[in-house]
């Protein structure tokens, strides 16, 4: 914010933007009155004291509808949480508010963050602001679309296998998933607990870094946070960058995306960077391993939604205990969520457990080991974010397997806990944007953000 705009003006502006592009369906609900009144308080406080109310004074934020905000509705874009209001605030929400941010509303997404197109929402699909016939990506589709359409300054999404980076790629904005354990998950509705991270979608890495510094760090309410400090590690110049041979040679990679990526590698070499092609024999196991483990955790995490203590319950038709579970859960959950719960329960069931769950856990261990070797050799790894640009609405609804492939490059950081960011680097001949994914070793988030900025500048200069 420069000193010329008041917080109230800013909130009015974004509310107007939201209203104007209502058809995008990026928001489930705006907190207009509350946001305006908070903006007024901030303005008055600034007028009287001459001081800003924290490092995010007046920053207008949207939050994905999977993050708890006390006293506000929370639904995970699902019918099963119809009418539910949070009784506490997520740690990230408390930290945002404490630094003067204004939460302007909650954003549409795939139900329980499961999906790559934002078509699995109880509130209907979100449209891509770049081309309204296209999907915005998912599951944080509303959060990416809102930033692209200038409906808020920055968004909080969640990323279990690419849910922040993939929609950022489709919409042409920047999406950052920190290392596993950098941002408290307390208050984030769990999809797959050992993969989930709250991520940030913004217009540039600088905005993202500012927000990140506020919401990351230790929290007694999340036992899975990294104790290691988030600091800048010195790196040898020239920077050594890796990419995976198997990623580039994958048959589902769009030709034009591949070419742009390879051109960029040439440019990096020209600029004096050391670029190395890495062999990643396990590459084809990444997506299956991801789906076995995330569906197992999802089936477990979603067991709590039964309509008994909260959420919607069809009291009229329930006759006994098993009908309670059958009716509430069948009516409450959408198709994709049910598919993943069934898959998860299948891989965890006696007789299949070792063949799927145990084996996938072993693959994950191998991936982690291999990752350490990669980063012994290179400072960061790049790849396309998604193998193809945004697809048409309804185009892939019937083919879940094809939709799973949209996650080809993004699930690897979640399996191994790496920080990763999607940068809006390229434009396709069909005018759609697509991104470059940059990854660093686990817990090296500050370095990642700096490299991201460096590469972004390089790419901008190259275009000009």
């Amino acid at each position: 914010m420069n000193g010329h705009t008041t917080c109230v003006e800013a909130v009015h502006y974004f509310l107007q933007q939201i209203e104007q592009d209502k058809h995008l369906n990026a928001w489930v609900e705006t907190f207009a009155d509350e946001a305006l009144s908070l903006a007024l308080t901030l303005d008055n406080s600034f007028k009287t004291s001459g001081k800003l109310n924290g490092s995010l004074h007046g920053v207008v934020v949207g939050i994905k509808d999977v993050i708890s905000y006390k006293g506000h509705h929370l639904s995970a874009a699902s019918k099963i949480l119809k009418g539910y209001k949070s009784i506490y605030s997520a740690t990230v929400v408390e930290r945002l508010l404490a630094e003067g941010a204004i939460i302007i509303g909650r954003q549409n997404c795939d139900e329980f963050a499961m999906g790559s197109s934002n078509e699995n929402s109880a509130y209907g699909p979100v449209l891509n602001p770049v081309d309204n016939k296209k999907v915005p990506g998912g599951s944080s589709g509303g959060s990416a679309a809102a930033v692209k359409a200038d409906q808020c300054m920055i968004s909080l999404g969640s990323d279990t296998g690419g849910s922040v980076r993939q929609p950022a790629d489709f919409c042409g904005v920047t999406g950052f998933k920190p290392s596993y354990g950098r941002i408290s998950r307390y208050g984030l509705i769990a999809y797959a607990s050992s993969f989930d991270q709250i991520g940030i979608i913004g217009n540039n890495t600088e905005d993202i870094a500012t927000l990140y510094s506020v919401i990351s760090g230790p929290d007694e309410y999340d036992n899975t946070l990294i104790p290691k400090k988030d600091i800048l590690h010195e790196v040898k110049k020239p920077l050594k960058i890796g990419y995976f041979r198997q990623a580039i040679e994958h048959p589902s990679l769009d030709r034009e995306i591949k070419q742009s990526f390879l051109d960029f590698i040439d440019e990096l070499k020209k600029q004096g960077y050391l670029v190395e092609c890495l062999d990643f024999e396990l590459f084809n196991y990444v997506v299956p391993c991801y789906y076995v483990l995330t569906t197992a955790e999802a089936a477990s995490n979603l067991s709590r939604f039964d309509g008994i203590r909260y959420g919607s319950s069809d009291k009229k038709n329930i006759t006994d205990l098993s009908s309670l579970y059958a009716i509430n859960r069948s009516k409450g959950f959408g198709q994709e969520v049910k598919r993943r719960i069934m898959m998860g329960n299948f891989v965890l069931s006696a007789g299949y457990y070792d063949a799927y769950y145990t084996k996938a856990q072993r693959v994950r261990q191998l991936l982690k080991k291999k990752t350490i070797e990669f980063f012994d050799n290179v400072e960061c790894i790049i790849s396309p974010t998604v193998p193809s640009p945004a697809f048409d609405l309804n185009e892939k609804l019937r083919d879940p397997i094809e939709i799973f492939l949209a996650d080809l490059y993004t699930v690897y950081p979640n399996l191994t806990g790496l920080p990763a960011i999607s940068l809006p680097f390229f434009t396709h001949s069909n005018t759609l944007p697509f991104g470059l994914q940059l990854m660093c070793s686990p817990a090296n988030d500050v370095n990642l953000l700096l490299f991201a900025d460096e590469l972004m500048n390089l790419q901008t200069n190259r275009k000009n």
Partner: protein
Amino acid sequence: MADIKDKYEAVIGLEVHAQLLTKSKLFSGDSISFGAEPNTQISAITLAHPGTLPRLNKKAVELAVKLGLSCNCKINEYNAFARKHYLYPDLPKGYQVTQHMHPICTGGFVPVRLHGEEKSIPIHHIHMEEDAGKSIHDLDEDYSYLDYNRAGTPLVEIVTEPAMHSAEEAYQFLTELRRLVRWIEVCDGNMEEGSLRCDANVSIRLKGETQLGTKVEVKNLNSIRNVKRAIEYEIERLIELKETDQPIIQQTRSFEASSETTFAIREKEEAKDYRYLTEPDIPPFFIEEEYVNGIKKALPLTPLETEKILQAEYALTSYDAAQIAADKPTADYFFSVTSFTQNYKAIVNWINGPLKKWGNEELISVEKIISPVSLAELIDLVAADKVNFSLASSKIFPELVKDRNKTALEVAEELNLLQTNNTNELDEWTDLVINKMPDKVQEYKKGKKGLLGLFVGEVKKISKGKADPAAVTTLLQKKLES
């Protein structure tokens, strides 16, 4: 039937759930105090609201280590939790968090006394887990009620090896275990309130066989005595089945206290698939040797070790030792009193007599009634024949309880209760009694020597207990024989 029974050997294993004496729940800050209004100890975490995460209670870990060490277990360095899934309304998350694969303690044993001999009951493992809430089905015809106060309460499950062979053995083990958990303050041991719960696995086999028979699991045992009764019933039932060539089915049975019988509630075929999942929200944690050693150093002797010391070093009988070591405060009190008097047997008698009686009537625990030094003074006063036990307990003791600043001697003097050997007084009192009962004197002289006690008693009465009974007896004998 007795001969038939002799052919068989029962094999019994117990699974004991003990509620840990923490202030808050295993994964949240909610209180776990017993008897609170329903659904008052429930935060968003307990109710499994969307987005909540568990926070591990370190005190629970400490108490589990304490118990493991007292049961001679190995404390495992690597610890992890898993989710055990089943759907039931009193289980808020739809899974129970438990140490499925990586329990905190393995191995170990608890020594118990059985028919006068010591026997070690081997422990398989002890693991931590959270409790579920409570479903109440009998308050309303159409609805069930749910109380989530108990949900998330920290428990340890103590699993024995199938190594007990009689209901009596199981009874002794549980009694000893309850005394132990109370002694080291990891659980209040209250079976009625459910802070200690026991399931019994029972099977039978022909003596000499090494393979285990098909087992049944008996649940709903809310007292140690019921555990014994249920096992006795099950053993008889299984033998009866075997003897009449009926199949024994692996099943879960419930004990019905009113009829002292058990009935089947679930068959093995209905066994659930719990779809265990590594708990992703609580990273594995490591218990370091240094930490364990710190807890070990602060551990008290076990009750059984204390009993042995009481017998060896304080010359108590095994019965007295068991009485004193029934609970730790009593044993500690005993040892405190021994700093002031060496009259150990008298300490036992005072504790088991006047102190327990007072404690029961006034609802106060034994060690809180009078100070160790006061009790020692009183004991020594009696031992020195300055007051008799009866006056000491009925008159002086209550005064000492009321006024903690007075010594036993001061009270005895104030109440004029000190015994006397003064011959003049004794002469006077004995003459008075002899003159009062000429008939009895005649009978005595004719040979009814048993009447001496009556005369001594009368003197005691007249002297209000001040007369030294030994001196009175000698004097009376002298006078009556002359």
